């Protein structure tokens, strides 16, 4: 087989590779590991082997002059002149990682009439801001922004580039990484620097049921998109000094033209919400959804739903939490009449407190909930909303 081979003499049959293989592609014949057709060459087995019995072709690479690359870059995403929280979270994390690498943190800021944001980026951790403030950059466009950042990366050679895993970030980052033919890890929930100075990127796979640590050993920059709300931003320090560099480039033509934004009502973004009240099939009827809506209003939260309600047309798709919908990371998630299928749980990221209300004491949602209440949501929700309203008045 091409790619991965077992050196039979070195294999002691310890089965560490069997445990490490996420694809079930290793079998044991006469107490020696054998790689089967299921192998995807992911390399997890090689890392697990303590006897150097697994070899692969992966040990090649252009690795010529990686040391010329230095510094950490964070893409500063803004909309209507407001920075996305994830950009500030990434600056904080970048500071911590940069300290280990003895490197500087640079933030890249594009837009129109956004110059005032550069101070914020420095206060939140950037040493330097590379800024383009142009009318033709007013609307985000992955091709235009991507082309500009690609050229800046070629010029400045950062070692690491981090982008928030927002809807925009997730189309921008692959443009840049593909242009540069470097690696990109999607939707990371953990970042660290290993002893060799490599960026170790941790991300969920298989709907969050498996975690993978991914590295990009031989290409630069090392790139990752990072899930919002995983890291905490630093306390801003407006005394901190930094360099703001204004850049000018020739305008680039985009291939997608924005006609208009159709925004959700203010404070209705699921991805930014602090409190989410989510409804499932247990709510019984489309008319009853208002009971959860009233609780959300009383708590200053946002209403969401599980997949069946969207499929039945009771809730819009934009409100769906789960693997085929949105991934959310509120502080408090209240699951009302949601059984907690694995596909739904895949949409729950780093949530401080999950509260589950369900009639069925055996519902899987109770296994992941911090607090559980066995009750019929149709009866329970109006009572709860009333109690909260009373307490607020008091």
């Amino acid at each position, binding site marked *: 087989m091409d790619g991965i081979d077992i050196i039979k003499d070195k294999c002691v049959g310890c089965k560490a590779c069997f445990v490490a293989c996420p694809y079930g592609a290793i079998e044991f014949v006469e107490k020696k590991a054998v790689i089967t057709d299921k192998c995807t060459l*992911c390399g997890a087995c090689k890392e697990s082997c303590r006897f150097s019995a697994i070899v692969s072709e*992966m040990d090649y690479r252009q690795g010529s002059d990686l040391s010329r690359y230095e510094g950490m870059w964070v893409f500063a995403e803004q909309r209507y002149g407001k920075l996305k929280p994830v950009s500030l979270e990434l600056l904080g994390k970048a500071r911590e990682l940069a300290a280990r690498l003895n490197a500087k943190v640079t933030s890249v800021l594009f837009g129109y009439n956004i110059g005032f944001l550069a101070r914020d980026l420095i206060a939140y951790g950037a040493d330097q801001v590379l800024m383009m403030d142009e009318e033709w950059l007013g609307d985000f466009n992955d091709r235009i922004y991507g082309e500009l950042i690609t050229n800046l990366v070629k010029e400045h050679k950062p070692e690491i580039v981090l982008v928030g895993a927002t*809807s925009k970030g997730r189309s921008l980052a692959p443009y840049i990484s593909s242009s540069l033919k470097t690696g990109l890890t*999607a939707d990371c929930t953990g970042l660290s620097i290993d002893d060799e100075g490599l960026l170790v990127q941790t991300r969920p796979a298989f709907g969050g049921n498996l975690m*993978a640590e991914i590295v990009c050993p031989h290409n630069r920059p090392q790139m990752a998109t990072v899930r919002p709300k995983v890291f905490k931003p630093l306390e801003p320090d407006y005394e901190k000094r930094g360099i703001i560099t204004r850049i000018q480039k020739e305008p680039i033509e985009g291939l997608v033209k924005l006609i208009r934004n159709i925004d959700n009502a203010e404070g209705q973004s699921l991805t930014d919400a602090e409190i989410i009240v989510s409804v499932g099939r247990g709510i019984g009827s489309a008319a009853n959804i208002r009971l959860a809506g009233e609780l959300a209003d009383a708590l200053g939260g946002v209403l969401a739903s599980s997949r069946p309600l969207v499929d039945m047309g009771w809730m819009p798709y934009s409100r769906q939490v789960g693997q*085929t919908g949105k991934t959310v990371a509120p502080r408090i998630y209240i699951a009302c009449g949601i059984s907690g299928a694995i596909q739904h749980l895949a949409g729950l990221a780093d949530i401080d407190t999950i509260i589950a209300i369900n009639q069925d004491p055996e519902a899987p949602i109770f296994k992941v909930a911090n607090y559980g*209440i066995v009750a019929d949501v149709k009866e329970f929700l109006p009572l709860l909303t009333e109690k909260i309203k009373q307490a607020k008045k008091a």
Partner: protein
Amino acid sequence: MKIIVCIKQVPGTNEVKTDPVTNTIIRENIPAILNPFDAYAIEEAVRIKERRGAFIYGISMGIPAAREVLREALALGIDKGILMTDRKFAGADTLATAYTLSKGIERIGDFDLIICGRQATDGDTAQVGPSLARTLNITCATDISRIIEIKNKEMHCLKITDDGYEEILVKLPALITVVKEINMPRLPSIKGMKLARRAEIDIVRFDDIKADENRTGLKGSPTRVRKVFVPVHQVETSMIEGTLEEKAQKLSELLLSMGMEVK
């Protein structure tokens, strides 16, 4: 119109069972299925074909068994299935996958539109679509929830974002990724299934494409999986007990106490 749909075969479930004693992964024979998001991509291509006429290619990179998902796509209304399969393609990350698919697509020749599902449910990266568009140097628009009109080499669409929707004009040729809101996929017809069973699937191997060996498969993949592990979710669930009234009272107090901490 010539449309290409990218299709992936994925495991039928994401459930990862672990042995409670050794904390190792228990594997059973998990059936492989058509990536759920790709069903929306196929359906949208077929709807365009029904409205204005089109020839639809379905292309997949994977193991020989991925033929089955191409047959499913044929039963649903695509016209030609292409499977790129070769040991030299194995171990590909998103960059190498996009490169390999781009070579398979170049072999098809001119096209107007590539449709991909938003993401595959095994890797969940949502990177191959945009990366493929970049590699082919064509327009890219992700998370499309509605195609309003296709006219004069331009496509008028709605795109779902974190903040709502964007109404956009997309210059063709383009690659779009679609979300489930875009349509309700049909079930295959009996006639379609019969046709699909007999249909010939084109097999494309490394030697059939003009590709750089250093850019496909594991060799062409800058990223490496260093370790995989099952996350430990040790949650202590406190059940709130009492009458309905008492439960509501306790939870309301709990919620308000948590609210106080922040504001």
